């Protein structure tokens, strides 16, 4: 069974295969939380939250 999770808590997503960051209707980042791209993903989401 495939699964799509919608969440605002990045720390709870360490077990998923892939994380896709959406902003303004477009995909701005994509990767795995365990890889080095996690830093980029966290930065993207944090920046979005600060702007909001």
């Amino acid at each position, binding site marked *: *069974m*495939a*699964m*799509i*999770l*919608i*969440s*605002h*808590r*990045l*720390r*709870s*997503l*360490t*077990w*998923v*295969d*892939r*994380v*896709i*960051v*959406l*902003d*303004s*209707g*477009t*995909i701005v980042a*994509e990767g795995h939380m365990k890889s080095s791209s996690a830093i980029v*993903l966290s930065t993207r*989401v944090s920046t*979005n*939250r600060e*702007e*909001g």
Partner: protein
Amino acid sequence: MGWLRSIAYVTPSSSRYRQPWSSIQGPRGCLPARGGFTKCSIRSDRRRHRTIQKIDSPLMEGIECDRVTFGYPSGQLVLSDVSFRLKGAEKVALVGRSGRKVDAVPSLCANRRPRCRPHPHRRTAASRVHPQNAAAERLLMCPKQPQLFSGTIRQNLLYANAEATEGEMERVIEASATLAASQSTTSWLETALARMRWDLGRREAAAGNRSRSTRQPSVLILDESTSALDLPTSTRSSRRSQPLETTWR
């Protein structure tokens, strides 16, 4: 304008689901049918503000979005050129700032407009009449706001399937990640929701279990369905969201 595509199984019994969609052009660049698979498509028409779904079979394997653009007639753009693929048992998380319509993609996949979150078990008249909505039936979406009615957990589970056996209901309860250790399965089943005055987290857990027990979906969409739980419990609950081995359909 783009296409939301899903791969579907082909079974002999699925022929009754095939609809005369000759007036609708098929998506370009679809994956070739392999083995027992064929395609099922959802087209998002931004100008006409509607979602058109073409289906060959009710059983789906995954979802593929290829340059999907969706917006409202007022000019508000919800999705712009979004492409991703979800196949097999893959787990994908969609994250983003609140209010940025992160749930638009799964909402469209479930044949629902964004921001429209009906009861997960409530079958509308349209879905009963039009078999092309059967693809959406294989998509199970657990919404953010759990909807339970007053009564016991047993009554809530029987609402999902009136023919559920005692063992099947217990299996559903055992799959719950938030079941208190001191509480037996039987007592949990007989718990009256109104009397317990559960918080949102408990209600979310109960609604999630009921959703998973209704049918065995090909794609499970959790739309912040555990947002009211604490982080460890939320993670544990999401990870255990596997299809339950029941006879429920």
